[in-house]
C-alpha cells in the first residue's frame, strides 16, 4: 500500500480498502524503521494521528475534501508550520515554533493532508548535499536498496557496511528521502538553484519546480527572494500535478504571485508527440558530465525523435556564466535576508548584554554555521558601495542575458528543453565532503540553476538506473507559466522509460510485521 502512487491510495481510501488512520500508522512505523536515514527532523505524530482521525470521519460520511484527504505528506523544515518546531536545520532557529502556517502548508492541510513531519535539509537551504544541517546529513535510501547492494556484491541486510552510504543531494534531501523510502506520498521542498530537482534525481523520484509566481512563498523562510519557489517531490508526475493543483494560485499574502485565475491541473495523456519540438542546449554538454548520464540524455532525445517529435540543438550562450551570476546574486540576497536573525524577537539569543551590536554579533556567530556566515560576508562584500556596480548590478545584467537566452529559444518554436539534472549519480558521503560547500554547489547546480534565474518551470524525471544500480534523472524545462504542458510531456516520457521501483523489500517486510504486532497489542489493550 505504501508503495502506491498518491492517486491510487486516494482511490483506496475512498473505497474503504484502508482507513486514513491505518495509513498514517503504517507511515509512522516506517518512519521509525527508517530513522537511520535521518530524513526527518521533527515527526509530528500526535498532530498526524489527529488529522488522520478527522479525515476518517469525513470519509465515513462520504464528505472527503479531495484527492489529498488523508494522504500522508512531509514538509521541508524551512516552511513555517503553526505549533510545530521549524528550524531550517540551524542553531539559530532551534526551538522556534512559528505562530502561523505557510500558505502552501495551509493549502495542503485545508485539503485534508496528514502532516507526518518536517524534513531535514542543508542549513537554511544552502548546499547541494543535505549534509550541512545541524541535525546531521541525510542518507540516500538507495544506499540500502537491493539494486545498489547487488551491484556492489554485498548482502542486502548489510547495515554494518554503512560507512559508504550515499548522499541524497540537496538541499531538500530529507523530503526526497522521505518520499523515496515510502514514508509519505508527497513532500514539499524549496527550489532556489535546483534544491528540489537535484535530490529528486539522486533519489529516483519526480522533483518539480513551478514557475516563479505560480505558488506562494508566504511562510517559506526566504533564501533568495527573486528565485525561491516551493518545490514538489512525488513518486510520479501525475501526483506532482495533483499537488500543484492544490498549491498554485494567487495569494494575497505574497504579492509576487500572479493574479491570473488558476486553472485545474488535470494532465491529459499525451499519445502523439509529433507536434512537439524538443530543444537540446549544446552548452549543457560539459566535460564533467558522466558518460552514463550523457548516454541516457542522448537516448531520451532519440526516443522523442523516433516517436515523431522534432528534436533540435539550441544554444543558450551565457550558460557558462550562470553559476557565477547566481553566486553573486544569491550571496547578496542572502546577506539581506539573514539580517532578520538578531535574537530579539525569535530564535537563538546569546548571553551577552553589553550592547545591541555585541549581542547581535555573538548571537549570529553562535547561530549560523560556516556556510551561512561565508555567504553573508561574501554578499556584504558584493554590496559594498565600491563593489555594487561591478558585482551586483553586473550580475543583474548578466541575469537578463541568461533569461533572454531562454526567451529566444522558446520564441524560435521550441516547446520544451531536455537536459541532464545532475552530472552523475549520487556519490558516497565520504567522497562528497572532500570539497567544500561552495565548490560542490557550483559543480552540482550547473544544470539546474539557470532555470531559477529565468523563473521557468522545470521537472526532473527519473529515467534509468546507472551501472551501479543508482537512479539518474533528466530535466525538462518549459516556458513560463506553461507548467501544465511541461508536466504533460514529462508524464509521457515517464510512461516510456518505466523507471524501476526501489527495492527496499527487507525494510518493508520488517515494517509490516512490526505493524501487525502493534495492531495486536492495541487490540488486547482495548479488551
Amino acid at each position, binding site marked *: 500500500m505504501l508503495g502506491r502512487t498518491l492517486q491510487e491510495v486516494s482511490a483506496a481510501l475512498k473505497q474503504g480498502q484502508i482507513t486514513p488512520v491505518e495509513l498514517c500508522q503504517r507511515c509512522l512505523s516506517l518512519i521509525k524503521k527508517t530513522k537511520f536515514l535521518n530524513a526527518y527532523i521533527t515527526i509530528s505524530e500526535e498532530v498526524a494521528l489527529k488529522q488522520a482521525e478527522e479525515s476518517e470521519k469525513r470519509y465515513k460520511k462520504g464528505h472527503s475534501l479531495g484527492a489529498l484527504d488523508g494522504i500522508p505528506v512531509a514538509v521541508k523544515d524551512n516552511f513555517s508550520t503553526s505549533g510545530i518546531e521549524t528550524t531550517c536545520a540551524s542553531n539559530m532557529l532551534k526551538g522556534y515554533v512559528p*505562530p502561523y502556517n505557510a500558505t502552501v502548508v495551509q493549502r495542503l492541510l485545508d485539503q485534508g493532508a496528514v502532516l507526518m513531519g518536517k524534513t531535514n535539509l542543508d542549513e537554511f537551504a544552502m548546499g547541494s548535499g543535505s549534509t550541512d544541517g545541524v541535525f546531521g546529513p541525510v542518507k540516500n535510501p538507495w544506499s540500502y536498496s537491493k539494486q545498489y547492494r547487488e551491484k556492489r556484491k554485498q548482502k542486502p541486510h548489510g547495515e554494518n557496511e554503512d560507512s559508504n552510504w550515499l548522499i541524497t543531494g540537496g538541499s531538500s534531501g530529507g523530503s526526497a528521502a522521505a518520499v523515496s523510502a515510502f514514508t509519505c506520498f508527497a513532500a514539499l521542498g524549496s527550489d532556489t538553484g535546483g534544491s528540489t530537482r537535484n535530490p529528486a534525481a539522486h533519489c529516483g523520484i519526480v522533483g518539480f519546480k513551478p514557475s*516563479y*509566481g505560480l505558488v506562494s512563498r508566504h511562510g517559506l523562510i526566504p533564501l533568495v527572494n527573486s528565485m525561491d519557489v516551493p518545490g514538489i517531490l512525488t513518486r510520479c508526475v501525475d501526483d506532482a500535478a495533483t499537488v500543484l493543483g492544490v498549491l498554485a494560485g494567487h495569494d494575497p499574502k505574497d504579492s509576487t504571485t500572479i493574479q491570473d485565475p488558476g486553472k485545474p491541473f488535470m494532465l491529459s495523456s499525451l499519445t502523439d508527440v509529433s507536434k512537439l519540438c524538443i530543444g537540446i542546449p549544446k552548452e549543457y554538454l560539459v566535460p564533467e558530465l558522466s558518460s552514463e548520464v550523457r548516454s541516457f540524455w542522448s537516448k531520451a532525445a532519440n526516443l522523442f525523435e523516433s516517436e515523431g517529435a522534432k528534436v533540435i540543438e539550441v544554444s543558450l550562450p551565457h550558460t557558462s556564466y550562470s553559476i*557565477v551570476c547566481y553566486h*553573486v546574486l544569491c550571496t547578496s540576497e542572502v546577506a539581506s535576508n539573514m539580517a532578520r536573525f538578531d535574537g530579539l524577537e525569535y530564535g537563538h539569543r546569546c548571553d551577552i548584554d553589553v550592547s*545591541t551590536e555585541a549581542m547581535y554579533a555573538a548571537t549570529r*556567530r553562535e547561530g549560523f554555521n560556516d556556510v551561512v556566515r561565508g555567504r553573508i560576508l561574501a554578499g556584504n562584500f558584493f554590496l559594498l558601495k565600491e563593489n555594487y556596480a561591478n558585482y551586483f548590478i553586473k550580475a543583474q545584467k*548578466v541575469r*537578463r542575458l541568461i*533569461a533572454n537566452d531562454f526567451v529566444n529559444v522558446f520564441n524560435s518554436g521550441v516547446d520544451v528543453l531536455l537536459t541532464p539534472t545532475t552530472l552523475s549519480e549520487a556519490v558516497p558521503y565520504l567522497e562528497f565532503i572532500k570539497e567544500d560547500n561552495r565548490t560542490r554547489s557550483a559543480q552540482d547546480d550547473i544544470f539546474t540553476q539557470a532555470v531559477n534565474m529565468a523563473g521557468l518551470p522545470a521537472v526532473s524525471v527519473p529515467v534509468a538506473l546507472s551501472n551501479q544500480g543508482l537512479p539518474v534523472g533528466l530535466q525538462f524545462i518549459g516556458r513560463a507559466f506553461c507548467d501544465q504542458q511541461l508536466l504533460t510531456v514529462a508524464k509521457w516520457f515517464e510512461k516510456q522509460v518505466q523507471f524501476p521501483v526501489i527495492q527496499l523489500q527487507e525494510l518493508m517486510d520488517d515494517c509490516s510485521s512490526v505493524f501487525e504486532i502493534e495492531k495486536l497489542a492495541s487490540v488486547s489493550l482495548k479488551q
Partner: protein
Amino acid sequence: MWARAVLLGYRSWMGWHRGFTSKTDPQGSGRVTAEVIEHLERLALVDFGSQEAVARLEKAIAFADRLRAVDTDGVEPMESVLEDRCLYLRSDNVVEGNCVEELLQNAHRVVEEYFVAPPGNISLPKQDEQQPFSHN
C-alpha cells in the same frame, strides 16, 4: 562561434578548479585587507572567525570576478522575472492582528509587552581593542 565560447567556458572552469587547489590565490589576495574585514564584520554583524573564512571570501571574490568577461553594454539590470507585471497590493484595511501573546512567546527576553534589548548606540570595539565576547 559557440564552439569557442564552450571552449573558453571549459578552460576557465578548469582554471578555476586548478586555482582552487593551490594554496596561494594570486587573483584573490590583496582584496580582503584587514580594513575590509573589519568593515564587513561591522556591516554584517557576523565575524570571520578564522583565516580559513578569509581565504574562502577571497576565493568567492575571485570566482565572481569572472563576470567581467561578459559584455553587458546597453543591458538593463533585471531585478525580477515578473518585471512586466504589476505587484498586487491589498487594500489598506486591518484584517488580522491582536496576536501579542503569540508573538511574544518566541522571544527570550520579554517584559510585559516589550521585547528587551541591550543598550543601543554602542558600536562594536575595534579589532585591536579588547573583544567583549572573548570568554576566559
